[in-house]
């Protein structure tokens, strides 16, 4: 029979009263107030707050009554002998062993890293394969409808003859490229002040090229390379994949850092989220680049053509950017891999 000292609160007023608790057999505890045994409590029917750190332990019973004691060790071993609070005590034990903690740390780092590198992209691929391409088509059509309602794109100013020329080149290119069941590659030419020189892949199979882009094209093979790159995005279903990947990533990050209660913490933690997402988009760009390279190798087109148009596009966008200093953040979070790297990839292949 052990006696532990503590404080008793009646739950009605904040006044405390010194008390002690007699730990008896079979989980029956005797509460002693003012040196008088007052009543018997059963440890199984009271609510013992799980131990945390080295803080006082609280036993709650009756109508909001509490017995608070600093004798954590004695109470814990008593609980063990009564078979109460197994989970709580196990967690508390885990938290108190440095060996366990270091093992947890290593395990966590490995899991987090491999989830980011392998787990999420793999899960994304699996889920994407489960979604029929009719879904991509629907999303694409909705997007095109949305574009119609905005002023992003305007009627093209390219001559009819030139348009026909590019359409012919396009058809020639896609005839050599692998098809994805249910998706049809299509070319659309538009003028766009907002996007400048650009080519965009819509998940449904439509590729929109801007007048600005077509004016930069100096060689048919450059055009073919860019089209192959955009088809790569469609073929690998990057639109759907990035949506799924983003959701999975947010979910994983909520698990990882979801327990914040401070604005500043939220901010410091949202920076890595942004960075990890751009990391994934880089992967998509690289995948599309390799798709284009594969095509160009087969067609015996030198990689330097793609590299040329790429560097011309970047130069042009850089000029534009220097005029608009507000685009700083955009370039900071740029989703394309450093263009130098990409250009190098194509030149290396040539050699």
């Amino acid at each position, binding site marked *: 029979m052990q006696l532990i000292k503590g404080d008793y609160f009646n739950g009605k007023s904040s006044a405390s009263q010194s008390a002690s608790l007699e730990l008896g057999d079979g989980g029956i505890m005797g509460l002693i107030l003012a040196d008088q045994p007052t009543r018997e409590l059963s440890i199984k029917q009271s609510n013992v707050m799980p131990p945390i750190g080295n*803080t006082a332990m609280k036993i709650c019973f009756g109508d909001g009554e509490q017995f608070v004691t600093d004798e954590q060790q004695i109470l814990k071993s008593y609980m063990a002998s009564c078979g109460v609070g197994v989970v709580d005590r196990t967690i508390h034990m885990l938290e108190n062993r440095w060996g366990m903690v270091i093992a947890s740390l290593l395990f966590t780092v490995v899991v987090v890293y491999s989830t980011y590198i392998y787990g999420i992209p793999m899960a994304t691929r699996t889920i994407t394969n489960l979604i029929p391409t009719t879904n991509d088509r629907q999303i694409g059509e909705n997007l095109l409808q949305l574009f119609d309602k905005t002023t992003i794109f305007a009627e093209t100013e390219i001559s009819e003859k030139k348009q026909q020329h590019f359409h012919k080149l396009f058809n020639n290119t896609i005839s050599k490229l692998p098809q994805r069941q249910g998706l049809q590659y299509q070319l659309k030419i538009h003028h766009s002040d907002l996007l400048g020189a650009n080519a965009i892949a819509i998940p449904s199979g439509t590729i929109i090229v801007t007048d600005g882009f077509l004016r930069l094209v100096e060689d048919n093979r450059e055009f073919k390379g860019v089209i192959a790159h955009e088809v790569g995005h469609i073929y690998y279903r990057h639109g759907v994949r990035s949506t799924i990947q983003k959701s999975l990533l947010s979910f994983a990050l909520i698990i990882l850092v979801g327990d914040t209660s401070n604005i500043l913490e939220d901010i410091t933690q949202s920076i890595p989220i942004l960075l990890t997402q751009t990391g994934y988009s880089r992967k998509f760009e690289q995948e599309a680049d390799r798709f284009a390279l594969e095509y160009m190798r087969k067609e015996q087109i030198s990689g330097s053509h793609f590299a040329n148009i790429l560097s011309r596009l970047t130069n042009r966008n850089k000029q534009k950017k220097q005029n608009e200093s507000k685009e700083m953040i955009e370039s900071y979070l740029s989703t394309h891999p450093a263009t130098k790297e990409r250009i190098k990839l194509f030149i290396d292949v040539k050699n």
Partner: protein
Amino acid sequence: MQTESENQAVTSKPMDSVFTDPSFLQTQNTPDGDSTTREDIEQSEDYEKIWSQVQFTGTGAEYFRIWIVNLLLSILTLGIYSAWAKVRRTRYFYNHVNIDGHNLEYTARPWQILKGRIIAALVLGIIAGLSATANPTALVVAGVIQLGVFLLIPVILVLSMRFALHNTQYRAINFDFSGRYKQAYATFLFWPMLIIPTLGLILPFVAKKQVEFLMEKTLLGKTPFEFNPQLTSKSFYWIYAKFIGLILALGFMKFIFEFIGAFVLFFLHKFGIEQSQENLQIFIVTIYLIVLFSSTIWLQLSVFGLIWNQACLDNIIFKTTLNPYRGLWIHISNMILRVITLGLAAPWCQIRWTRYKIESLSVQTNKEMSASFIAANKSGKDGNIAEGLDDLGGMDLGI
């Protein structure tokens, strides 16, 4: 009766004197009259005055172990344990806050938190899912849901306050929140809507209203927190004026940084080192973000100082020695530490900040009160069921 002007005289004294000079309050003359003021309580002869500093006994090494176990179990259970983790984390911090010999307790049940998180995740998931389809109708629906959530913010706020406070205990007495939805809509939706039409001029006034709503509706047992002396709009306008000054000063520094950056770039260029424009931009953007966050943190801490130097609970007086600049430094250095250690220093950072914040607080107690801190009754459930959404109230909506 203490007059309004005397009241203002107290608060319009520079904040710093309150921080650095604890005797400041005691040197005030007690006016005759029946209303009890801060000074009355302090100088009353019935009480033996004891200022006791609030203690925070948590340590980084100990919390690190809890943090990593929380992380591990959350990962292993695909996030389900995160609700339990929240309870453990909160309990660690609450249990280590020691006021006058007794600690705080957090009594929320993980299931309630899990329930709230599942609902929040569903709503977010539905919005994200609808947006992802890019279908015009779905986008409209998603927009409507978002608007609905926005309009519900005051309700969510009241529910969260009620949940958080109801689950906070001191000496076996629960805290409570008595704010009503109607008042929440006025303070957190109606008044803020007027900020833009008035070009932000009423922003400090709105901030004051919000602070008053959150504090004066907070109860320990049945005793509400009060401000004595009352908060004045003047003090809020003063803090916001300083806040704008800080932003302008730091914003000016942005130009200096850009100038330095360009200078460095020029020299590197001279020595034949081509530094990419992008690196410079990253540098400047980072500085800019830090400026913005610093000012906001400074603002929050200044308001914290204002609140806790005027807060009373029955006849217990609080005061804080928190210095907003020191607090800002802790935040910035914590952020740097986190980045350098890839987030591993987070537990130490949290403990460091909590210790500074908590230990800046003192309460004035007396012999009688240390025996019976507040003779308040435990609030019964019956008083609370009046409002309709209360069954939702049994969960944490994560604010």
